[in-house]
């Protein structure tokens, strides 16, 4: 066993004005060269721990706290720890200071007063090892999320570090950005760097040697990853996200068909399932009792029927039609084509996934549909009425739109006031506004009685997002356009939001969901529209539309479709949820 680089004993931390400790007697060691995952729900103290390890916060009390030989209980020790322990935070946007990538990577070295030639050499080295050479003169706001986070990581590691702490580093990234960053972390780990990764994603836990689970500022679990996965109760209580392969395995176990171990990837699941599952006498990762708990616990996670949001009778959905739409942005005098000859129809009450890589025109299309951008050419019909006609104006108001990170729009002093903003602007009478607010808050799972008076900024990230959604739903839209609604939410919040959207689809609201997340789209939407370079490359039902693209196109197939194919089953009958998959496989 290598020597410990981090030792914390009886460590306490309390934020000014808080009524309880964020860290309450924390005990933790990290060995040199080890990769440790730290998991736990919001408010468990994970991020506080990350700051403390980096010498960025002063512990309230503690018996012992050292990182790389620096005493974190003294100011001088914390200052010294900042040179040894690097911390990468969640939001890449808020970590970049300089006007170009290379100057940002150099920022730490400039602070330490390195000589310019030495800074040059080290910066070039970092740019090369993080694949940023071609971007060195790029301005940060022009980078993708993944590129920003890699730039920030290169900047943190430009100062030679012994320990790297990552605080939910992929939470704000799309799937590609996530893969890029995790690859970088795997390489660093292979290079012998000690890594502490704070995360809520179970497949990220999988890259660690050891995992520590925090709850209310103290350690609830400390051991191997497989052991934690076997503790279904803990996984649920800590609101961790299990990859779909794991969900399927749990659902199988609940049906009396346990696998030998918990798979985290599709490959693992196929191998374990084809191996025939666990035999009598196998050391099980899940006891049968827990399996039944797990199975039962799945039921309430399905959307509970809302207690009659009666004042608003379910309105019929609106049909949307586009014909030969084209749109170009003006970028410094040059037109940049964002949409080209886009034609499609969304039937009333249909749910359509709008898929495609970044920059393929998804967001632009949503804005054209909502009438926030005027297309250069082509027509948009709402319920069969051309949008420019005057009788389309009331229809336009019935198209709700939820932009990326909609919690940005929250501004009022209470949840109910914020949700009421839209309905009031429509000039509805007070009693109608109140009924609409109550129904919308109920629908998103934030009942008025409990959340109506709370300040929006006091809610968790997931709750804020659902409150913002309520603000749109209160206007009683018959069609709802959503732009990447799942980005930067923790796994449990993603599940809650998906349940709300499923309820809307069920009620017959027309839903257009622009997303990178093919699996979320698969579980929610009955049709797809795939854009690439501003053109429609596939449209219609899943299968027919997506088969042509699988592998080669801008789209990877949904998990369940691929699973069914790999198991030699008919992909056309692939299930939508883990429970359905288990039912078919058990």
């Amino acid at each position, binding site marked *: 066993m290598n020597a410990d680089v981090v030792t914390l004993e009886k460590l306490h931390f309390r934020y000014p004005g808080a009524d309880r400790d964020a860290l309450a007697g924390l005990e933790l060691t990290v060995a040199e060269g080890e990769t440790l995952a730290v998991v736990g729900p919001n408010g468990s103290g994970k991020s506080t721990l990350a700051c403390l390890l*980096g010498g*960025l916060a002063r512990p309230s009390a503690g018996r012992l706290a050292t990182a790389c030989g620096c005493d974190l209980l003294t100011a001088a020790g914390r*200052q010294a720890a*900042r*040179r040894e322990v*690097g*911390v990468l*935070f969640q*939001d890449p*946007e*808020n*970590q*970049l*200071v*300089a*006007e170009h990538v290379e*100057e940002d990577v*150099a*920022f*730490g*070295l*400039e*602070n330490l*007063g*390195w*000589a*310019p030639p030495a*800074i*040059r050499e080290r*910066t070039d080295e970092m740019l090369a090892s993080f694949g940023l050479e071609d971007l060195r003169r790029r*301005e*940060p*706001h022009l980078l993708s999320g993944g590129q920003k986070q890699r730039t*920030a990581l290169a*900047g*943190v590691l430009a*100062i030679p570090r012994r320990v790297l702490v990552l605080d939910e580093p992929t939470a704000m990234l799309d799937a590609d950005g996530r893969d890029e960053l995790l690859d970088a972390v795997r390489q660093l780990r292979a290079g012998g760097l000690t890594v502490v990764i704070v995360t809520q994603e179970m497949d990220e836990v999988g890259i660690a040697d050891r995992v520590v689970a925090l709850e209310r500022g103290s350690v609830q679990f400390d051991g191997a990853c497989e052991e934690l996965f076997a503790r279904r109760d803990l996984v649920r209580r800590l609101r961790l996200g299990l990859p779909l392969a794991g969900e399927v395995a749990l659902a199988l176990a609940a049906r009396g068909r346990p696998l030998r171990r918990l798979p985290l990837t599709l490959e693992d699941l196929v191998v374990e399932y084809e191996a025939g599952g666990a035999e009598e006498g196998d050391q099980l990762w899940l006891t049968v009792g827990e399996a039944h708990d797990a199975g039962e616990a799945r039921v309430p996670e399905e959307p509970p029927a809302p207690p009659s949001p009666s004042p608003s009778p379910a309105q019929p959905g609106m049909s949307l039609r586009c014909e030969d739409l084209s749109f170009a942005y003006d970028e*410094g005098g040059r037109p940049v084509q964002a949409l080209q000859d886009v034609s499609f129809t969304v039937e009333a009450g249909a749910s359509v996934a709008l898929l495609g890589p970044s920059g393929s025109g998804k967001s632009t299309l949503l*804005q054209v549909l*909502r009438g*926030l951008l005027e297309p250069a050419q082509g027509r948009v019909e709402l319920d069969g009425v051309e949008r420019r006609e005057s009788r389309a104006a009331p229809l336009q*108001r019935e198209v*709700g*739109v939820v*932009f*990326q*990170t*909609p919690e*940005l*729009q*929250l*501004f*009022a002093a209470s949840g109910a006031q914020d949700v009421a*903003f*839209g309905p009031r*602007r*429509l000039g509805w009478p007070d009693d109608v506004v109140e009924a609409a607010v109550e129904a919308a808050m109920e629908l998103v799972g934030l009942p008025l009685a409990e959340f109506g008076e709370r300040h929006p900024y006091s809610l968790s990230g997931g709750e804020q997002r659902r409150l913002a959604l309520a*603000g*749109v739903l209160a*206007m009683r839209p018959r069609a709802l356009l959503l732009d990447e609604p799942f980005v930067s939410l923790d796994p449990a919040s993603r599940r809650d939001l998906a349940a709300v959207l499923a309820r809307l689809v069920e009620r017959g609201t027309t839903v257009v969901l622009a997303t990178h997340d093919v699996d979320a789209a698969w579980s929610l939407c009955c049709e797809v529209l795939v854009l690439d370079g501003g053109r429609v490359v596939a449209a219609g039902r899943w299968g027919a539309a997506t088969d042509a693209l699988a592998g080669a196109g801008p789209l990877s197939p949904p998990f369940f479709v691929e699973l069914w194919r790999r198991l030699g089953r008919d992909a056309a009958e692939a299930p939508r949820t883990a429970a359905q998959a288990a039912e078919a496989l058990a």
Partner: protein
Amino acid sequence: MKAALTQYYPGDSPLHRADPRAKFVAVTALAVALFTRDSFAALAVYAAAGALAFALSRVPPRWAWRALKPVLWLIGLTFFAQVLFAPGEPFFTVGPFELSWEGLRLAGFLSVRLVVLIIIGSVLTLTTPPVALTDALVWLGRPLRRLRVPSDELALMVTIALRFIPTLLVELDTIMRAQRARGADFSTGGPLRRARALVPVMVPLFVVSFRRADELALAMEARCYTPGVARTRLHPLHARPADAVLLVLTAAVIVVASVV
């Protein structure tokens, strides 16, 4: 949008490569000299120098127009004020206004001088990234450090402000669109009503800015930033022989203009 705010036009001309301190000194000297000589001949020399510098910068000429456009009203105002109110022998009278050749001459002179000033100034801002310009000002303002002016911190503040302007503009745009989709109306009503309509935009924008500032401060500390401690730079300012040439040429222009 960024271009309009900061005016930098990326390029690799001799003027782009020149030390920003030299450029700043040269432009300041030309501007001061321009206003100390009142002859058309001198003005012609400065106009030629400005046109030459602009050509040397290899910035497309329409950018000169872009620099002039926002101040056209000022140039126009100067022109008419001189035409109408300058003393001189009137040759034409409309009501209380008298036109004189002297007035026309003066008005033309002052307007052209403003145009030349803006062209010369825009050569500096078009060929120098804002951060380099800040660095130059900080270096030139070094003596002020004795007076406890925190020039390094000021430079970093400018850098960060410039870095976050595009981010916040995008955020502002997103928030406005989201609120508009919820029925907000920013373009009708009197000033009071319009100001009130902005509340749902300004509150979220300030909240997000404060959160960004907070997290940025932490991320900077995590990269060993300590206020008041001297920093080095990846791109230190380097004066080269070419910069001496630039300064000598500038001096030559001023001398020529003062004798013609």
